């Protein structure tokens, strides 16, 4: 291949390369435009979906939220609206307290001391039953746990007294 042919070949390759590059650029620009269009369409669909989700908010949502917020600023303890967990926890605690109280009244002779303990238990039960209708936000959970612990602590003394009485019965029977 002489110099002239070599130059012609290079020029031809350059021209071919330029044409390929131009075609590739055109394809790329077209794909970018398509991509932008598709992305814009998708964005519009997402906005429509989000609008639908916001519109699906149940009636009275704002008022219920305001009520909850109002409870935060209320001078009384916060009362909430729903909670399966709280209901379950307070039910167990309340049931334990009631069973313990009833058992004590049936199995041991009432004394002033027992009356005091049972009165305390009744208060705890009242509080727990109160919480039964309340909800979970914020500190209610901690409140329930605390109340459950108080009930448990409150039962310690009656249980201990019951054991003493039972022991004395056993001792009396054996002697």
């Amino acid at each position, binding site marked *: 291949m002489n110099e002239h042919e070599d130059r012609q070949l290079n020029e031809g390759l350059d021209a071919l390369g330029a044409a390929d590059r131009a075609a590739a650029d055109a394809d790329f620009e077209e794909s970018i435009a398509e991509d932008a269009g598709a992305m814009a369409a*998708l964005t519009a*669909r997402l906005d429509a979906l989000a609008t639908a989700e916001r519109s699906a908010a*149940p009636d009275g949502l704002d008022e219920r939220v305001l009520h*909850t917020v109002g409870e935060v600023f209320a001078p009384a303890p916060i009362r909430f609206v729903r909670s399966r967990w709280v209901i379950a926890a307070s039910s167990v605690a309340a049931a334990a307290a009631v069973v313990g109280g009833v058992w004590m009244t049936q199995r041991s002779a009432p004394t002033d001391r027992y009356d005091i303990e049972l009165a305390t238990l009744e208060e705890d039960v009242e509080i727990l039953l109160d919480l039964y209708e309340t909800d979970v*936000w914020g500190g209610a959970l901690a409140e329930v746990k605390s109340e459950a612990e108080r009930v448990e602590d409150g039962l310690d003394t009656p249980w201990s007294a019951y054991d003493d009485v039972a022991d004395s019965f056993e001792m009396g029977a054996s002697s």
Partner: protein
Amino acid sequence: MNSGQDAISPVPDGGEDLAPVLVAAAAGDERAWRDLVRRYGRRVFALAKSRLRRMDLAEEITQSVFATVAIKLRDGGYDEQGRFESWLFRIAMNRIRDEVRRTTRHAAPMDPEAFGRVPGDPGRDAGPDTNELGHLRAALDELGDADREVIELRHHAEMSFKQIAEQLGEPMGTLLARHHRALRKLRAILESSPAAGGAA
């Protein structure tokens, strides 16, 4: 809550400075809270609803978020001046993540939505999605958490990219690239879905 006629009047609308509203809200001003709930209540709800697909849980989370915000404002726990929206939606996202984790731990053996609406169960979202938005919902479900989060914060919570970048602690460029990548993935999911008819 007090009626707040003296604390703030009138409550500003739209994108005006929130600072006086927040000051009044911290004092329990009812009008200020009405304003905040009007601005953000449904956005929080939509964010939760999109992820959890249950009306009752979405409402529960919305109430929980506002209760938390109220407690923090009341107790002086809000110190992110000028970034209230990012703060509020960060609380919302945390609540939603907690709930997702909880429901994952106690996963039902089947997707109730796939079996249609349960009559008389108002907490349950609509049944099988057969419309266009339904396909989009289903496609969102297939996205990874990180991609989905960016899309939902942008579209459902209507946050600006700047706010999302602040909330996620990422540079704006990274956030924009993440959003674009998430959209591409969503588009690919939609195109590969026969129900969507390949239309993105």
